[in-house]
């Protein structure tokens, strides 16, 4: 897929998308499926911006990773619920099928995979969302072998799209799962990442600041070239407090 300047301008246009489906991932997140009129087809890894508009003109907007494959008729967004989050709270509690939401996208051409070269996706928690889009796309184009995945969360229940990831053979690490199930590591540590590092692949690392920093250093120690590592940090967990900044 190539993207022309024309597409880029079209992607920047705000559109009124219709909410087709709303699903909840426990209290952690809401998964929205949107019908976006005249949409520009995304590349797995790209994101959308959703903008809420009040009657007095006040707006609030946030970016969310696209989870759906490019070929999907709808755009699926994984919206992690931020404690006290103005936008994510509204999307999770108020929005229902049939509502209209302003959105624009797809945005970002760096953390994006076209399904051609080998790729390694490493995600922590909600950071798996863009990797699931990559996974669905790899399946669609019949090249599942191009994409390796290593993901982690505290518990199985905390891992978005767990069944889909496990079915695809992703390395799943659960750091606080009581009575570890005996398969896979409990953490994505240096050894686990060393085993999946692939200097010939582009590494897509997505998660909190702390998670991505750790994964980067494991990848570098495992010989993954610096220039092959692409990082996306997002969500509330993309933040680190000042006193944590030097870890």
């Amino acid at each position, binding site marked *: 897929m190539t993207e022309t*300047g024309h597409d*880029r*301008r079209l*992607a*920047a*246009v*705000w559109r*009124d998308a219709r909410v087709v489906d709303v699903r909840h991932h426990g209290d952690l997140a809401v998964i929205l499926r949107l019908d976006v009129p005249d949409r520009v087809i995304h590349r797995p890894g790209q994101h959308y911006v959703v*903008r*809420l*508009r*009040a*009657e*007095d*003109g*006040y*707006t*609030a*907007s*946030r*970016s969310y990773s696209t989870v759906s494959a490019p070929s999907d008729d709808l755009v699926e967004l994984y919206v992690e619920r931020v404690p006290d989050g*103005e936008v994510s709270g*509204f999307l999770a509690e*108020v929005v229902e099928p049939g*509502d*209209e*939401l*302003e959105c*624009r996208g797809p*945005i*970002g*051409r*760096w*953390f994006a995979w076209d399904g051609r070269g080998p790729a390694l996706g490493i995600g922590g928690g909600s950071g798996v969302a863009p990797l699931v889009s990559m996974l669905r796309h790899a399946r669609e184009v019949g090249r599942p072998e191009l994409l390796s995945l290593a993901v982690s969360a505290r518990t199985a229940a905390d891992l978005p799209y767990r069944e889909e990831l496990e079915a695809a053979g992703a390395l799943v690490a659960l750091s606080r799962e009581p009575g570890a199930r005996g398969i896979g590591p409990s953490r994505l540590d240096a050894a686990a990442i060393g085993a999946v590092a692939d200097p010939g692949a582009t590494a897509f690392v997505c998660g909190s*600041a702390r998670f991505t*920093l750790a994964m*980067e250093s494991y*990848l*570098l120690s495992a010989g993954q070239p*610096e*220039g092959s*590592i*692409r*990082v*996306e*940090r*997002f969500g509330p967990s*993309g*933040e*680190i*407090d*000042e006193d944590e*900044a*030097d870890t």
Partner: protein
Amino acid sequence: MAITRGFTGRRRQAERDPRLPPGQYDVGRSWPVLTAEATPRVDAERWSLGIDGLVANPTSWSLRDLKKLAGQDSDTYRGDIHCVTTWSKLDTSFTGISLDTLLEIAQPSPEATHIVEESTTRYRTNLPLEDVTGGKAWVVWEHEGKPLSREHGGPVRVIVPHLYFWKSAKWISRITLLDRDEPGFWELNGYHDRGDPWLEQRFDGD
């Protein structure tokens, strides 16, 4: 544009902090980290910043040189910063040296119109010269009185606080003056060429 059913927002438009540009929210005391590449370990002892390109006097400084140049009363920016991902951090401070001081030494040629900031990671971002002169840009090594952390671009980064923060290169290593605009990393990857938060110049096409 359609009103979102049921949405009133945390604050009424009229109550919004006037320091917040449109579409931004106040992130409070935290400071999110956003980077596209692996976070480098830059050795402050061996680090240097060069200014080159269309200048009469290409110059390179070590961190020690910069601190000496800044002297006792180094320049401090106190104010707000705005990230394109919609957070703003209000009333924060950075200490370093005004880019004006460094450009005074390097002496831009009359035909120079733009700069490119380049990081040790090869991250690049482009700006018109007028956006980094006249007290609008700083090369900084402290945030709120403490050494700038690695995640936030330490040991030394640029800040151009009146534009979205991707225009403020972390781990700065080189500033090149050009007679033309040369789009950098995000500018080639879907983001706006200038990035004025008050005009919401977020993405290409805004």
